[in-house]
């Protein structure tokens, strides 16, 4: 058996801006530990000189003409925001 890699769920959850309960942290550490053990077998493959595949579409750096088009109206965009006022999305104060 390979040793379980050092997954610190509490730390990673903070990076992901996700609050977890202590119970969730314990559960995920167990479950994801087993998943990480399972994927350890990738390390025995020799991938020297193999190019990574980011996606399989044979297109790169797609651009379009730089001309204005139609897009969501301000009202439609703000209409789905949890809080808005004065044509702005309202969030808690970020600068003192």
């Amino acid at each position, binding site marked *: 058996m390979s040793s379980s890699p050092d997954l610190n769920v509490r730390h990673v959850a903070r990076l992901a801006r996700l609050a977890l309960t202590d119970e969730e942290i314990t559960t995920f550490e167990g479950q994801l530990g087993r998943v990480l053990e399972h994927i350890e077998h*990738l390390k025995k493959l020799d991938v020297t000189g193999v190019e990574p595949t980011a996606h399989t579409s044979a297109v790169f750096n797609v651009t379009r003409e730089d001309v204005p088009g139609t897009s969501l109206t301000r009202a439609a965009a703000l209409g789905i925001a*949890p809080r808005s006022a004065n044509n702005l999305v309202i969030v808690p104060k970020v600068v003192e």
Partner: protein
Amino acid sequence: MDLAKLTISQIQDGFRAKTFTPSDLLRTLELRINAAEPTVQAFLSRDFPEALKLAERADVSLPLGGIPIGIKDVINVKGQPCTAASQILRGYTAPYDATVITKLLAAGAIPYGRLNMDEFAMGSSTENSSYQVTKNPWDATRIPGGSSGGSAAAVAACEVPASLGSDTGGSIRQPAALCGCVGLKPSYGRVSRYGLVAFASSLDQIGPFARTTRDCALLLNAISGRDAMDSTSLDLPAEDFTAGLGRDLKGVRLGIPKEYFVDGMNPKVRATVETAIKQCEAAGAELVEISLPHTEYAVSVYYIIATAEASANLARFDGVRYGKRAEAPKDLMDLYLRTREEGFGSEVKRRIILGTYVLSSGYYDAYYLRAQKVRTLIRRDFEAAYEKVDAIVCPTSPDVAFPIGERTNDPLKMYLADIFTIAANLAGICGLSVPCGFVEEGGVKLPVGLQFLGKAFDETRLLGIADAYETVSGWTKETAPL
């Protein structure tokens, strides 16, 4: 004649002969939905009066004129909810149409209803929906498969003639197999994902569910094509995907990957699939044993790449611009942390954690970059295979629909259920599941799916092969006893 049981092609015959109208059909389906939904629970919502308005002015001369199509709740339809079966999008109303919806409307179709799914398409059973558990129309104690379980169950229960789903690692083909309908995952780049709630952007494709291969081809005709709003969609020559239908299997070379017939799969499923493959041979196909040597790594590669991409895609659900926001946040960090804690379910959280971890500083090369390299090896396996064969034939799923609740506490076991479908997404090729018989479990007849995998952008041939098998086998004529 029960209008709810007709295929799209049969419906179109009825429209043309003026035997019934699009409004008659929609009313019949609404009655059928009302009767079936207390058991099946495939629909999260639907707007009958709105759909009836479209039916009343439908132009049946259009390619899909007057045909109601159920929509997985992950594809935006303007003015309708789109929750991705998540609490974080409860109350959200789509302000725009996905490109596939714009195209369906242009083809005369009626987008009808929001179909249940695993939250953010993460799952293999639709049990991860935060709203309801969809049941398999063949046995209501079992799951319909996932993540597009509602899309498969609605077609199998004759609530709609066809539907759209999305397939990131098998989410169209696996539920199609488990519910006994036909499901197609197009090649990566064939269909625009603009307006699809993104899960794993290098893997996601939208595709159709229907009762026959022909109907899937009709839907692919309508939804495919280059779209400036999705830079991965390709500008390919116009194609009629029904062009390969109605042929036979004579001289077709079918590859049998030895890695897809493994210990641990349900032996009755294996026997059913082997019988189906022999039937292909009897119909003239040439069987070729092939090897896809990196198959055993596909699930691991997938769960690194898919969770990594998901952790980035789901960062947009921050409670700021749309969707749910936690009450009375004390600062912006608290708003993010609690909105996401309250809005996401367990499986989504689990995958965000795994994805964030494999991308985090110090682990990126060991996990994500290595997985991308192994992905290249998996692609090459398929490229080599298609030098020898026209298509690959194998099981869609190692098992039949399993009982509700059986695997919810064992994510690894749930992930391994996708073993035969994942590689197609990693390789970007097209794949389809077609019914190939039944096995009996506990006195109940459960459907089995046969998977055909075609090389990238070879959908016309793939659909032709599946249609030929469907014709000789006749399994698509079976409907759930519901």
